[in-house]
């Protein structure tokens, strides 16, 4: 394969974290690493963004929790997770065995929740950054309210900022009129990076039973179907702010990932694609390397934000 002839340099610096390559796995789509360890050498990943953790364990929503849509899927998992303490005592030690960046995705139902998780994580070793999910569309009480109210976002993020020395990454909701407003608010709040996009709020109905396909009624749309929206938002956000961006939304191939890099993302995250191919993250990495060397690029860094508008 050409790719091995002169392998392009893949490391990137994300807010002071050196990632061996820009390919991460998206929160909630890769568990806490274990589930995919038998398919993927986790050491090959730039990093793992773990399933969202909260201060207390959360059961999540009743089933059905997922529904397939054209080139996408709806989910309303409801952020099921064992809570931050179990994460630290049982999940983190496993992840630390691998040579890859561990980014912990957090959320809560109140500002206090968010701060409590942040403080808890700040004190432990082996975490590269905290990704603050202010955009989960499936939790009535929390998430979304912050993610779609710029003042609430700013207030929350600046408080989280005060509670930790770790880099914090704001995960923004795509369900907003102007993503740049929220991107700037995150910068003002002192965030070190951005993650986008989270899922688009969607709904599907069984026309025979006349019931929603999800017990939760609405859910988050992810997968290739949303990629054009995600690329556009990363492009808009990258022009608006100077902090690095983790681009995600429908990435299945290395070509898809490079769209995000060219749009302005410094790293990318593979989500739903893991479900249809457990090795998707590695395939994305290899695909990126192949295209880079075919096009004679020496490093992936050269391409960040380099889409040239005619």
């Amino acid at each position: 394969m050409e790719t091995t002839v002169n392998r392009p340099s893949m490391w990137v610096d994300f807010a002071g974290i050196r990632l061996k390559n820009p390919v991460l796995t998206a929160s909630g789509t890769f568990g806490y690493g274990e589930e995919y360890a038998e398919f993927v050498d986790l050491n090959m990943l730039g990093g793992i963004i773990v399933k969202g953790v909260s201060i207390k364990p959360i059961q999540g929503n009743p089933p059905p929790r997922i529904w397939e849509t054209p080139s996408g899927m709806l989910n309303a998992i409801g952020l099921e997770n064992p809570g931050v303490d179990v994460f630290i005592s049982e999940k983190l030690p496993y992840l630390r065995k691998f040579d890859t960046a561990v980014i912990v995705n957090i959320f809560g139902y109140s500002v206090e929740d968010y701060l409590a998780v942040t403080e808890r994580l700040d004190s432990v070793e082996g975490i590269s950054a905290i990704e603050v999910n202010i955009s989960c569309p499936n939790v009535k009480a929390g998430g979304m309210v912050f993610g779609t109210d710029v003042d609430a976002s700013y207030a929350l993020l600046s408080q989280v900022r005060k509670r930790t020395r770790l880099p914090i990454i704001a995960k923004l909701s795509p369900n907003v009129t102007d993503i740049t407003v929220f991107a700037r608010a995150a910068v003002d709040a002192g965030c070190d990076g951005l993650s986008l996009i989270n899922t688009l709020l969607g709904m599907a109905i069984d026309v025979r039973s006349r019931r929603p396909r999800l017990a939760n009624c609405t859910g988050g749309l992810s997968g290739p179907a949303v990629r054009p929206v995600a690329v556009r938002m990363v492009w808009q956000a990258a022009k608006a702010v100077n902090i690095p961006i983790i681009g995600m939304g429908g990435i299945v191939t290395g070509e898809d990932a490079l769209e995000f890099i060219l749009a302005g993302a410094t790293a990318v995250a593979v989500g739903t694609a893991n479900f249809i191919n457990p090795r998707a993250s590695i395939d994305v990495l290899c695909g990126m390397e192949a295209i880079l060397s075919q096009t004679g690029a020496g490093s992936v860094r050269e391409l960040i934000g380099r889409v040239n508008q005619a």
Partner: protein
Amino acid sequence: MNKLYRAEILSNKAVGRGYRRMKLKAEGIGKTAAPGQFVMLRVTRNLDPLLARPFGIFSTVSGNIIEIVYRIVGRGTILLSDAGPGDELFMLGPLGNGFPAVRKNAVPILVSGGSGFPPLYFLASKTRKRAVVLLGAKSEDCLPPKDVIGGFKKLSSQVRIATEDGSAGETGLITDLLADVLERRSMKGEPVVYACGPNAMLCAVSMIAQKAGIECYVSMEERMACGVGACMGCSIHMNMGGYSRACKEGPVFDSREIRWKQP
């Protein structure tokens, strides 16, 4: 151990009653597969339909060949039925926890509703104990294919069939058959129920087993995205509170662990 394969289709034949039988070749797949486990099959190389489809393992033809029997019910299974010998499919498996091994003193009672028979067939073929097989369906055309029923007859001490409309076998629900079998207690040894089918039927079966005070293992169907425990999409409500993943802790559960939704 779970594996990701490019499985080669060896055959994909219509076997009647809307079912097809597919032989899949993949290095070593047959060696570890246990009754009750399943595989995830991608039905296209394109992005619609997006998700892989779960199918129970029907038999292991050899260490490198498994068989599934599937019913054509929607777009994914239609695509699957279009595939021919030589075509390759992305396959993940064997996945999940299957049925517990049948104990020496146990008499297995296999209870299948609708298209729930494949894992039970695999179980019947793997255990030395001759099982009692109960097959239920709405009507004759919803029963397992004839050759599968024939196979069950060879593998078991007794096969009883019930259809709701009486178009085949005894008229009534499969639960009637189960109750009847348990009353008679004709067989010597400890009866243990192994069931697969629609959730409502599994609920009814487990109630009967509970009353009779016998063990009952059920294979649960839930929509799945990843099949490996990562997406949390396939959750089953548990008695202890909280959810378990059909694809990881299941699909087979001890019926007493499940919080059944009474209809």
